[in-house]
């Protein structure tokens, strides 16, 4: 389950390692897209947090962000979000389209969806390769809205209502291009147990 303090040190290590591999791959995909060698990721964290704490991670409930959401199905269920402050989303679209200013029109939105799609699928591909799990991403959904509205909608849709949830998160930022963002992975209702169960079976 998602409860607090239920993870053993070994499980935490395993999740951290998964986070590292996934986020490393996602960050390099993004740096290629942006042709930005200065894009760096902060070492991924496994955090057990309350709902308000997870919202604070992405700038607080009222912060305007672009959030790309992808549902994972296959061997395990999960939910991935790629969230950027609105200024970073604008900078990202500008840099990809080679334009000076951005209106979040159809074109800009489809760029963001595609970038989110590539980032998340890069993350998932690395996880799948490492674990031999089948991880299938849905089509990407994009919302430009308050961080709290986006995050709570994702959790409600996933029926994740625990006091505390386990989140795998990675922050990245670039000095060259004022871009920062967060990649969040939360397991489905079954929690990370599903991951551990399958991983322990396939590893031995």
């Amino acid at each position, binding site marked *: 389950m998602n409860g607090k303090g239920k993870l053993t040190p070994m499980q935490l290590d395993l999740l951290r390692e998964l986070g590292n591999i996934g986020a490393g791959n996602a960050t390099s995909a993004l740096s290629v897209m942006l042709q930005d060698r200065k894009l760096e990721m902060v070492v991924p964290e496994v955090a057990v947090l309350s*709902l*308000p704490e997870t*919202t604070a991670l992405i700038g607080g*409930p*009222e912060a*305007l962000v672009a959030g790309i*959401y992808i*549902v994972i199905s296959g061997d395990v269920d999960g939910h991935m979000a790629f969230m950027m402050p609105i200024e970073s989303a604008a900078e990202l679209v500008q840099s990809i389209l080679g334009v000076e200013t951005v209106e979040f029109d159809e074109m800009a939105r489809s760029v963001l969806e595609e970038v989110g799609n590539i980032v998340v699928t890069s993350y998932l591909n690395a996880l799948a390769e490492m674990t031999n799990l089948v991880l299938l991403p*849905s*089509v990407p*959904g*994009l*919302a*430009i*809205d*308050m*961080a*709290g*509205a*986006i*995050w*709570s*909608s*994702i*959790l*409600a*849709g996933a*029926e994740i*209502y625990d*006091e505390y949830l386990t989140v795998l998160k990675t922050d990245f930022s670039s000095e060259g291009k004022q871009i920062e963002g967060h990649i969040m992975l939360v397991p489905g209702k079954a929690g990370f147990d599903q991951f551990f169960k399958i991983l322990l079976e396939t590893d031995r």
Partner: protein
Amino acid sequence: MAEIFVNMGEIKVSAGDDVLITVGLGSCVGVALYDPESKVGGMAHVFLAASKDRADSEPGKFADTAIPALLEAVVRAGGKRSQLVAKIAGGANLFPKLTQASLNVGLQNVAAVKKHLALHKVPLRGEDVGGNSGRKMLLYVQKGKVMVQSIGSELREI
């Protein structure tokens, strides 16, 4: 005037010169309940429609437990049961592309909140629900005024 923030799943009440605020309502529904005579108000930020077997969870998270808990809290703070009125906001669908019609959490939340208000005979006096944008909701307790705002639009009274 103090600002009192209502987080997801919480219930807060006031009988003072306060404004109850909930931000980041996506598929969640904000419920403002107040007694215009005694100027007591409360707010809930409802996350899902039904508590089912989730008895250990906070009552404010689910419509079926949040409405009675909110009623009780407002009455305890001095509101008169027969004078209470409600206004609601939220229940949006931020990811329409990913949502099958039958799984629209926002609409389910709105329907459940309305149902439980009706079951407890609280008249619904205003609403701003549905759509694809998140909302912020404010209840000015002394005026009994409820304001709603979405990203990129003006604050409006409901």
